[in-house]
């Protein structure tokens, strides 16, 4: 673990809360220390209540930061109690935020990017696209979700000058199929494998299929996983995902909060 990696915890004021759809919110918080250093793929822990319910903070990917204004933006969907409480926060209220947490995508030597995101896995991919010099890459974006409402930021993505395909489970936006179907079509069409990489965030079944396709078409991949977390900083040992092989050091599991959330193609048993 990299102890020198800076970490901050503070009470952050909600500057702006926007409801994107019936269950989706985008919120911008004041967090200057984090905004200066965070990287795409990293996440924060937000404690939504000072009471005991919910007790634990919840992890959210960083959607974007504004280093000049010192702000952090997250995007979330209401799942249960914590996200429900967060959605009701008013501008000017504060929450405790801890971060930046976790690792980042590695773009060294990559020219061709297949970006594959589903549902609440969309924010890290959005953040990445905000930070890279897009014309330097050949980018194909694949976004999937259950319904149109869950295809967060589709307008923003639509305005980007990159190749993209959208899909929903119910056909309410884009093609009615799993996002991994257009991904496989694209992989079949061919690419220069030494400089290509799939970057993917989303639910476990989607990541498992992306892993399978990446192995089949022999393309590198970086997969960002989600698990249940308590601490976010490596002190509870709760957030594990099983690792492939590697019996040498008896390391069967990896801690997603500090060693992840992003892993290379073959590391995890998904």
């Amino acid at each position: 673990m990299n102890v020198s990696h800076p970490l901050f915890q503070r009470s952050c004021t909600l500057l702006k809360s926007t409801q994107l759809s019936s269950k989706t919110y985008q919120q911008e918080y004041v967090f200057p220390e984090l905004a200066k250093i965070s990287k795409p793929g990293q996440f924060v822990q937000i404690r939504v209540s000072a009471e005991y319910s919910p007790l634990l903070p919840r992890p959210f990917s960083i959607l974007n930061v504004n280093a000049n204004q010192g702000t952090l933006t997250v995007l979330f969907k209401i799942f249960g109690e914590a996200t429900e409480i967060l959605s009701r926060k008013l501008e000017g209220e504060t929450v405790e935020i801890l971060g930046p947490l976790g690792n980042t995508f590695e773009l060294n030597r990559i020219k061709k990017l297949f970006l594959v995101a589903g549902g609440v896995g969309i924010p890290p991919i959005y953040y990445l696209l905000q930070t890279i010099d897009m014309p330097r890459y050949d980018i194909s974006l694949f976004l999937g979700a259950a319904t149109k409402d869950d295809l967060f930021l589709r307008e923003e993505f639509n305005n980007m000058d990159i190749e993209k395909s959208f899909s929903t489970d119910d056909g309410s936006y884009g093609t009615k199929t799993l996002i991994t179907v257009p991904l496989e079509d694209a992989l079949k069409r061919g690419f220069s494998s030494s400089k290509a990489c799939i970057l993917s965030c989303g639910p476990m079944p989607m990541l498992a299929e992306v892993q399978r396709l990446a192995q089949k078409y022999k393309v590198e991949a970086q997969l960002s996983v989600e698990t249940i977390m308590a601490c976010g900083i490596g002190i509870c040992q709760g957030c594990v995902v099983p690792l492939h092989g590697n019996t040498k050091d008896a390391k069967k599991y990896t801690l997603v909060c500090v060693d992840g959330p992003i892993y290379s193609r073959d590391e995890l048993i998904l």
Partner: protein
Amino acid sequence: MSDLSVNIGDLRLANPILAASGTFGYGSEVARLYDVNILGGIVTKTITRAQRPGNPPDRLAETPSGILNSIGLANVGIDNFISDKLPFLRSLSTSVIVNIAGESIDDFLFLIDRLEEHQGIDGYELNLSCPNVAGGLDFGIDPKLAGKIVKETKKRSKKCIIPKLTPNITDIAVIAKAVEDNGADAISLINTIVGMSVNVSTKRPKLGEIMGGLSGPAIRPVALAMVYKARKAVKIPLIGIGGISSVNDVLEFLITGASAVQIGTFNFVNPKAPIEILKELEQYLETNNFTSVKELSGSLITR
């Protein structure tokens, strides 16, 4: 300034706020956020003879005012602990208590012998909430075994030996008495309470191991009652653990008879909780004109 120091056997802690085993890693993780030397002490994750990968996921589930965990004593093992984790702990000025567990008395003795070869350790906490492979029962529910472990470990080290008791037992006073009679310097209590939670829509247990250990504010009244029972049964110092989230909670344990406390689950809720609570404790003592925190310990009025 009120005197915050407390004595646990021969060990003098700068203040009564410690970080509990399994909720503070090996110290270095939280050192990224604040100077951990401010704490009265750090208790390490339980260390075992061999490295342990721990249990299959899911290992965590939130329950009302608490969490269930089935971590399975995942730890780096004694060799890696000594080579990779101890150097950082040794560099600290705060007290370092190494928590150890084994499947036999031999395991405990092996671990103490290995650790005794090294500097930077101020005491040992014996995690008795684990099964004794030979006997089948947890060490912590058999007064003879618990007493024997304490007696044997005391022979191997001059440092503070602190058995940590499980609450999953009929009468904690019996175990408390057994470890005191065999030379324990202090007692830590309590460890987690056996618990379970089910996802109704999938009909599956929320934890991979089906059952796990409950911790957090939900268990505080149980922990407090156990400290009370142990206080009546023994004279050695008690370290109270269970759901501590605020200075008020610390005061409850001190008044009931604990000399010090450990903060566990709240490190996950707010990693700075221990130092924030310590500051409030200092203020409380000042405001209420206590010259020493020791005056509070056991000041419970029962009639």
